[in-house]
């Protein structure tokens, strides 16, 4: 586990040292090949989503039957689907859905999970027991089961996908943060802060949280990748994003009916998912190596 020095642990003369450390991190990051590839892939996904807000080669929802199932050409780089919609434009707009679902779901899971994990680590005893048993209960429901329950009760929709992923992520973050937090609470600088009369909340915010933030960032990156995969799966199954909202998973589900006629249309959305998930996974792995070089040596 990495120990980044928190503000309160740092003496006044250590500011320069931190500057050097940050520069070292940046330098190591630039030299970490797979981390940089991950950054490039994820950057491409984010940029295409942002660009699609103001511009796409064609309208991602416009139906042009005369143009249906066209192979890639100069006017339609990735070809067109069964309704004559431009696949490249749909993929660019679909990136928005993946990013929005991933961001909201992971933030929801991270905020609640990190708070619960920190609380469990600070209080221990029955508080920790209750939080961990709730987390056991949460883990009994993989994302798809939560989405199925929500859809059966309230009908399909993108909100269900976000909620299902968010709820599932609460226990993922809570468990990780609790474990790391407990280890922090046993460190000398926390004991010293305690002896100085600081309360649980102050110690958690000033000492525990800053020292485990790297673990949270790594987990958030990996959870984001998993969220993109899960959102695509839920949309593919018809319980996630609904038409006309473009989504990579639904594009794949629709393409399957034309698999004998135009198999190429099933290739593009899948590639978009793979490259995005690969990018985030490489960033996650890279960050883990960068914040804990011991792990990098072991892997």
């Amino acid at each position: 586990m990495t120990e980044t020095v928190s503000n309160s642990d740092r003496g006044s003369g250590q500011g320069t040292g931190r500057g050097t450390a940050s520069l070292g991190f940046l330098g190591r990051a630039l030299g970490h090949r797979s981390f940089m590839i991950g950054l490039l892939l994820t950057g491409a996904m984010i940029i295409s989503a942002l660009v699609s807000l103001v511009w796409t080669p064609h309208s991602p929802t416009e139906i042009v039957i005369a143009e249906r199932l066209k192979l890639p050409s100069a006017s339609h780089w990735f070809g067109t689907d069964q309704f004559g919609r431009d696949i490249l434009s749909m993929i660019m707009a679909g990136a928005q859905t993946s990013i929005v679902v991933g961001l909201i779901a992971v933030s929801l899971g991270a905020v609640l999970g990190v708070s619960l994990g920190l609380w469990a680590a600070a209080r221990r005893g029955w508080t920790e027991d209750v939080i961990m048993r709730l987390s056991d209960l949460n883990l009994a429901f993989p994302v798809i089961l939560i989405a199925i329950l929500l859809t059966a009760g309230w009908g399909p929709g993108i909100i269900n996908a976000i909620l299902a992923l968010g709820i599932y992520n609460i226990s993922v973050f809570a468990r990780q943060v609790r474990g790391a937090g407990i280890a922090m609470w046993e460190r000398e600088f926390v004991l010293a802060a305690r002896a100085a009369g600081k309360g649980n909340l102050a110690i958690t915010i000033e000492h525990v949280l800053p020292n485990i933030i790297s673990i949270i960032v790594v987990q958030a990156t990996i959870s984001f990748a998993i969220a993109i995969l899960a959102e695509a799966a839920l949309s593919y199954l018809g319980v996630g994003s609904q038409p006309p909202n473009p989504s990579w998973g639904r594009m794949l589900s629709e393409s399957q009916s034309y698999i004998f006629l135009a198999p190429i249309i099933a290739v593009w959305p899948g590639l978009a998912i793979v490259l995005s998930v690969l990018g985030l996974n490489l960033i996650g792995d890279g960050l883990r190596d960068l914040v804990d070089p011991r792990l990098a040596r072991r892997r």
Partner: protein
Amino acid sequence: MSVFLARRFLTFLITISGASVIIFLLLEVLPGDPALTMLGVDAPDSAVAAIRLELGLDRPAAVRYVAWIAGLFQGEMGLSYVYKVPVTELIGQRLQVTLPLAIGSMAVATLTALSLGIFAATNHNRIGDYGVMGFSQLGLAIPDFWFGILLIILFAVILHWLPSGGFPGWDEGLWRGVKSLMLPVFTLSLSLTAVMTRVTRSAVLEVAREDFVRTARAKGLSRRAALWRHVLRNALVPVLTIGGVLVATVLTGTLVIENVFALPGVGKLIFDAISNRDLMVVKNVVLLFAAIVVVVNFMVDILYAMVDPRIRIQT
């Protein structure tokens, strides 16, 4: 050990009971009147009244919950509203497809991952290792349903070797059944193989650095003999553990893959039930899946504690 076992068993009971309460609340209480959930808000009053009477939905929620759980203890899950047959019968029929799919992909993944993981570890930091790690990185990023579609394009559309989907039933002959499950099994095993390969590789590397392996080598044991006699036996513990954890992945994977290949399994059953608003089926299948996840987690914890005594003391 017995205190640990008792505590874990109590947690297991609380979790499974909590899961049943959550399922019941989310399906039959929070969305409002379950009769309206099933028939839609525009349904005529007479139809709503009839379904309430038929499924006993006119009783208070607490009574319905107790009746559901009491039924489960007697092996009854109620009647499917759409198919008009007992839900246990429906699940039993569908498991004939889902179980071979789940077990087959677990078996394929375990065999492939053990071979690849050991190969990568014994070729650490060489080209073979990079190749295997690259494959596993890709395996983690490829959505299994897309991999399934690609396999259909290759083996059904282009080569015409295997069917693109559907299941003829085991009565039509073992080979025809196996043939229609081949692509789904390979599809589902991809992400499992990727995860297990990584775990096997790092477990073998970790154990190979232990002192007892060095001692074995110092005593004159060859690299290969040390690997088979000492390293693998110890490296299998984390691999078994992750295998247990992956059961949840396999189960939810079958839900998706059965829809890719139009297989009449439990996964297809539950999504058809959602479309048909057959709450009885949804309720029981979700509980069955959640129960399997909880039982497997419980068994993994016990297994882990048997192997590593520190877990028993910490918990």
